[in-house]
């Protein structure tokens, strides 16, 4: 037995180590962020000269009066360089086309939002609500593309002076997209004062994007040097553009030194990006694998341990997903917590239904696997129709809790979304709990005893019927938990189970029946294989490849990857 256990155990252990290391890295990163946020930035005030000559009202009047682009540019610059508290909101509104003026004399600058009766307006001066006006009572302060670009830059510049790291980072990133020489002083000032490494990298990049268009070779080389810290896709296409030759063999970039430096940086970036692509694919694969693991692990109990082909397994997941939906209906004000409540609820609902199915049907069919398959398929049809009749055949939407959204950005090329991250952790926790129940609890001991030698277990006083029901309930309950996870990933509908049942069977069969480590390994490797095939073959073809692979694999090892060996297994 020992030889057979070492490999899966080794894989499991190394997977744990990797996960722990990832968690540790995440901790470290968050620590630096908080230090930066703690340090207050006092530089903003001194950097900007207030335009003391004109009052807010005067400047606003000038903006309304300005007709030509150049006049508007001047006024916008004035607002941007002012210390008016309204400056940022006004420019923002202007850029988004929400800045209007009334036709009163003198006209008043207002923010306007669409309203059934026209516009709902509020004062640009103090935000005071001015009620609803007709469509023709106000006129938009119009801007063109040139002004829009200017505004974006200016807003970014202002944002660079913000106290929030996130705002500064976003501003720096915006600057990368719209490099223009006039920002250079602001960027340089910001670089001198910046304390967050993340923001600094983006600022240098923005500076580089401006300097790359400079006339001085040294500045341009320095810019390229700055690019080497990033994996920004815009930068990569810029550098790649330099290497393009025209029909006469002349490079887009005429300066040989700059071009070669750019080529070198580009090469490094590409290599790095490729590496991160692999990391990202692996991560996607692992998260897909975790979904597979969740959907298959319940089956690994009912099929793998008990030998029952439960075609209604998918519907157990569907019930779990609908339970999540119902819980959310019951507690609409606590969406963030409803999913936590849904996990045990789904376990109970699906587990109970599982026990009913076992006592009512499967019990009579032990030792006749093909008949079990047909009967449970019948059950799956009944459950599907029941859900259709109760909840309507349409898909229901389950709102994801806020803490599941967002992503963990590691660098320009790699960001890991939290919902995928959580699902990996969740599936591992479920697997660990299941192993604990099976290996360390008395109920688990009884379950193993019954599956290995029913007659002996019976004669030792174990109520085998009760243990069967409980084991089946456990497998079904875990399917219910998988349903909670699926409700966050796909539509909750009557067909939810159908789309996962074949995959789940594939995982269990591939991993080797009766072996939870095998199921774990199979789910993860199939998930990763699928995601690595997808870029070349497309999602559907990748799935077909995986199916064909498993069909062929079963020919080679009919009992799966980590099959139990021995004479007794065959009979």
């Amino acid at each position, binding site marked *: 037995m020992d030889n057979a256990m070492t490999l899966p155990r080794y894989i499991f252990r190394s997977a744990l180590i990797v996960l722990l290391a990832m968690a540790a890295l995440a901790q470290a990163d968050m620590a630096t962020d908080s230090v930066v946020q703690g340090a207050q930035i006092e530089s903003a005030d001194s950097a900007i000269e207030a335009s003391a000559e004109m009052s807010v009202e005067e400047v606003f009047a000038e903006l309304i009066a300005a007709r030509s682009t150049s006049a508007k540019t001047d006024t916008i610059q004035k607002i941007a360089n002012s210390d008016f508290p309204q400056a940022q909101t006004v420019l923002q509104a202007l850029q988004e086309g929400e800045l209007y003026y009334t036709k009163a004399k003198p006209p008043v600058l207002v923010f306007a939002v669409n309203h059934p009766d026209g516009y709902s307006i509020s004062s640009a001066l103090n935000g005071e609500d001015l009620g609803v006006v007709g469509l023709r009572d106000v006129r938009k302060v119009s801007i063109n593309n040139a002004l829009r670009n200017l505004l974006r830059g200016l807003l970014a510049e202002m944002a660079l002076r913000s106290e929030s790291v996130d705002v500064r980072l976003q501003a720096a990133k915006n600057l990368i997209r719209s490099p223009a020489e006039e920002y250079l002083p602001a960027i340089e000032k910001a670089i001198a004062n910046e304390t967050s490494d993340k923001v600094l990298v983006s600022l240098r990049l923005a500076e580089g994007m401006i300097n790359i268009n400079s006339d001085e070779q040294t500045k341009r080389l320095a810019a390229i040097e700055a690019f080497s810290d990033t994996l920004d896709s815009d930068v990569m296409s810029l550098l790649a553009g330099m290497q393009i030759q025209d029909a006469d063999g002349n490079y887009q970039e005429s300066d040989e030194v700059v071009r070669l430096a750019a080529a070198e940086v580009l090469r490094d970036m590409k290599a790095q990006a490729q590496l991160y692509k692999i990391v990202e694919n692996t991560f996607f694969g692992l998260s897909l694998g975790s979904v597979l693991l969740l959907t298959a692990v319940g089956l690994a109990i009912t099929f793998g341990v008990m030998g029952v082909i439960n075609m209604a397994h998918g519907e157990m997941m569907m019930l779990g997903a609908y339970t999540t939906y119902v819980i959310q209906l019951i507690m609409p004000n606590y969406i963030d917590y409803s999913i936590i409540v849904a996990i045990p609820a789904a376990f109970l609902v699906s587990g109970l239904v599982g026990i009913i199915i076992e006592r009512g049907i499967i019990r009579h069919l032990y030792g006749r696997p*093909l*008949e079990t398959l047909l009967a449970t398929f019948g059950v799956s049809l009944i459950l599907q129709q029941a859900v259709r009749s109760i909840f309507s055949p349409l898909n229901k939407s389950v709102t994801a809790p806020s803490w599941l959204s967002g992503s963990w950005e590691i660098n320009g090329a790699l960001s890991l979304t939290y919902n995928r991250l959580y699902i990996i952790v969740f599936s591992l926790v479920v697997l660990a709990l299941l192993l604990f129940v099976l290996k360390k609890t008395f109920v688990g001991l009884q379950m193993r005893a019954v599956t290995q030698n029913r007659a002996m277990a019976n004669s030792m006083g174990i109520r085998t019927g009760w243990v069967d029901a409980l084991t089946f309930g456990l497998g079904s309950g875990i399917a219910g938990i998988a349903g909670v996870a699926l409700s966050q990933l796909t539509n909750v509908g009557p067909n939810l189970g159908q789309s996962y049942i074949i995959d789940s069977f594939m995982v269990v*069969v591939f991993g080797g029946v009766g072996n939870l480590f095998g199921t774990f390994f199979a789910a993860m490797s199939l998930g990763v294989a699928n995601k690595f095939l997808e870029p070349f073959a497309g999602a559907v073809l990748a799935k077909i490849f995986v199916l064909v692979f498993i069909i062929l694999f079963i020919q080679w090892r009919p009992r799966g990857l980590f099959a139990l060996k021995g004479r007794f297994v065959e009979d």
Partner: protein
Amino acid sequence: MSKFDDVFKQSLIGRLLQSDRAGTWLLGALLALAVLVPFFNLVIPADSFLHLPTYLVVLMGKYLCYALLALALDLIWGYCGILSLGHGAFFALGGYAMGMHLMRQIGDRGVYGNAELPDFMVFLNWTELPWYWYGFDNFFFAMFMVALVPAALAFVFGWLAFRSRVTGVYLSIITQAMTYALLLAFFRNDMGFGGNNGLTDFKDILGFSLQSDGTRNVLFVLSALSVAGAYVLCRAIVSSKYGRVLVAIRDAESRTRFMGYRVEHFKLFVFVVSAMLAGIAGALYVPQVGIINPGEFSPVNSIEIVIWVAVGGRGTLFGAVIGAIVVNYAKTYFTGAFPEVWLFMLGALFVISTLYLPKGIVGVVNQYRERLAVKNSANKPQELSS
């Protein structure tokens, strides 16, 4: 009359049916249908109350195709214990082969008027016919493919699976994976089989319009004759020594092997024959319903075939035919009358037939007759004594 009887009894079919009364009835019924249905549809005028509407002819033709498919499954499941959950794939492949021929027959009458390319290819901006569509404009080539393509898939799949002794539920699961993989593949537009929409808008077959009553009746008669022919073929197979080896494999595979039979060869042969029958069923089905799409590959369809056989009574051949017709008639009726109830019904049918009717309708009838026989023999002495 008696002379005819003698000749019939000595013929191959006669010998086969000698001890198969149900089979004789079935063949008789099929032949009667093949004569009566066209008569009541074509000869009896449309305003007579005896007239059989054409839609019923098509519906019955459809049931017969299902019956042929059920027969194919019963041959391997009932007699050899191979529960294929992917037999719909062979049916669909046969259907696609026929569909490709009908597609080519449309010629330049399609929406885009392209004589060389089917509409969906023009729509996808394809410029030439893919190589695997070559030859399908020829009727005989297409008919050859109807049997050959399912047979080839069954051969490759079966050769791999049986050689490595994949049995029981494992085999069922990988057959399901097979049809699922094909479902996904045929949904793809790049496959060149019309993707999601499949093949449809057929015009005619061998120059006869598919919409005409005459063609529809001919297709019906062909379906009835195919079921009859397939029944005789299957009966011949299962009554030969080969058939008994199949039963031996079903009951005690290991024992059969130790007797020196190459179990994988025996399974492979019957699997391929069954796949061909399923393909023919698909080919008869497509011109009658006028469409073939990837939905036919859906694993649920394949499982439904199993329930026809289970309800009728597996391992009896005629049970499969009865099951296919009864379940499908029920489906037509209930989906029309109580659409909400149908899936409950079908689900309950699965559960009840496996729990309480392990031998299906045929089993129930036999049981009833046996009980009747026992009663009669119990009654007789009483009558004598009184």
